[in-house]
């Protein structure tokens, strides 16, 4: 159990995340946009929105071209009779273990972008938290969901 999990998520995740980040990233421009108003009235220095605009652009580019790749590259998961093991993170690395007999329910879900690529994500809920394995192809997601439910059922019977 101390070894890192091995299974990767679907590679199409990168493309899907690039598209969704392109859209979500548009929101970043609201900040320099808002800073522009006081600058226009001379309340703050004009340099602030001038710097903020390109910074937002660079951040947007990072969101589109850099982060999805790193994120995909890092994401690993494993599911076995002990529990669900997740490993992920771009800057901060996170390793999470959800023991099987704490799992309350498992769902799959699919947004519009994921649907285009035939991807689904799985969310695993405990009494306290919800965890997600993103971007699995539909078939794997359905199988995995069934497998986790089955493991949970077995574990509960043992107890």
């Amino acid at each position, binding site marked *: 159990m101390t070894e890192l999990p091995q299974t990767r998520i679907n590679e199409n995740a990168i493309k899907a995340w690039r598209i969704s980040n392109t859209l979500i990233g548009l929101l970043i421009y609201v900040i320099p946009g808002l800073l522009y108003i006081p600058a226009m009235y001379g309340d703050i220095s004009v340099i602030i929105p001038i710097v903020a605009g390109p910074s937002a652009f660079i951040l947007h580019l990072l969101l589109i071209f850099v982060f999805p790749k790193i994120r995909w590259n890092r994401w690993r998961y494993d599911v076995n009779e002990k529990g669900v093991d997740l490993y992920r993170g771009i*800057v901060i690395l996170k390793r999470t273990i*959800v023991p*099987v007999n*704490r799992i309350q329910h498992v769902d799959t879900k699919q947004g519009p972008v994921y649907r285009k690529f035939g991807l689904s994500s799985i969310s695993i809920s405990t009494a306290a938290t919800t965890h997600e394995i993103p971007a699995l192809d539909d078939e794997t997601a359905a199988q995995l969901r069934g497998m986790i439910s089955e493991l949970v059922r077995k574990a509960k019977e043992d107890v």
Partner: protein
Amino acid sequence: MSEFRRQHPVAAVTQFLTVVRQNLVPIAIFLVVGTRNTDNFFWYFFAFGVISTLILGIVGWLRFTYRVDGDELQIKKGIFVRKNLYLTKDRIQVIDITEGILQRIFGLVKVEVKSAGSGTSSATISAITRDEALELRSLLRGEAKKAEEESVEIEEVSESDVLEWRLSGRDLLLAALTSGNFGLIASILGAISGQLDQFITEENMYYILDKVPGLGNTSLFVGVFILIFIISYLFSFIGVVFQYSDFKVEKKEKELHITSGLLERKHITVPFNRIQALRFVEGIFREPFGYGMLFVESAGFEQKSNERSIVLLPFIKKSKLNKFLSEFIEEVEQPEKTVTPPERAFLRYLRRPNYILILTVLITWWFWDFGWIFFGFLIPATFLGWLRFNDAKLSFNQKMMTLQYRVLAKTTAFFKKNRAQVSELTANPFQKFGDLTTAHITVASGAGGKAFSVMDLDQKDAEDILVWSTGDTYEQQA
């Protein structure tokens, strides 16, 4: 109880008071602004508000009826939108009985029925007689036969052999003196005093300076500061005394009953199987005397966020904690393995509280020439880091875990293995470089979770925690 019943008429008044209490701030603003107006228009408006709220209270009381039908509590209520609530017995988790000031005058109680599942609000019957409440409780708890016995037991609780813990008068006094709530109250007072602009005119100031000999600008400022401190300390003292007067915990077969309060008596029921974790907090004013406060994290029924952590003991000597736990809840067993941060994490601990501090000081310095004075805080901040390093500890055996950490107050959390929902290790790039990791363990609390974290543990040691959480065998310490 098969007929629909109405509450005691006092419910109409409590409803009115609840509305007033919830809108205290707008009402206060309204009064302050309104009384400046010289014409009577404002008072008509105010009277209209009061009367319509009273009428709503009365109509609400008329419309509110309840009954127990078989194993179901049914409530009909609502003025404009009629609501019917049906709570079946097996979904009811907790029945809390509270006596507010007004209720106590009339010998009444408030009953809150909390049920499992989200989306349904808890059903509150705000004024019925004590006997009715007890009857209701026994009906809904499926103890109809025992109803009489129970009411007898409650009347003569001191004579029965129920295990109970009481807060002594001396401890209540000490708890009130060391509560440390005054910081919060002082900030509220500070914010209010900022609103008193109209009284702090130049004329008034000169008048005061003139009247009090030897009072300069600085000493006036310091004086106001001390005054705010004293007032808030008094408030916090009184607050604690009112809240925890006559505090007692009783152990029943399946649950703990907590009763406390001077003017408003609160009864809280904590079923044993809802206890997720216990949290012992040693506040900075209490730790030097060896005292702390015990909270219980419970889950499973709908709660407001401030109700998730229930105060189980407002003040107890640390050395007596284990005895209490073994008598009332469960023995704390010896750990098989203890994990503490390794030596190489020591300097990280010392540095960590300083990062934000240095940033804040630099910003202050930018605006104020003498801002560098605040660099003096580096010493206590580093000391805090040193304390944090010494306090960080995580120990466990096959059944339970004890987790200790410090933010400002030292906290020790106790929970059973099957209550640890999720274990997580995180590492930022610097931690990764030093082969260190932060462990987070989440237990259920209220409708969500509460995470306990211990920072900068050795990667190998921390992985044992993951192993522990899944029930595998970990390497034991010799």
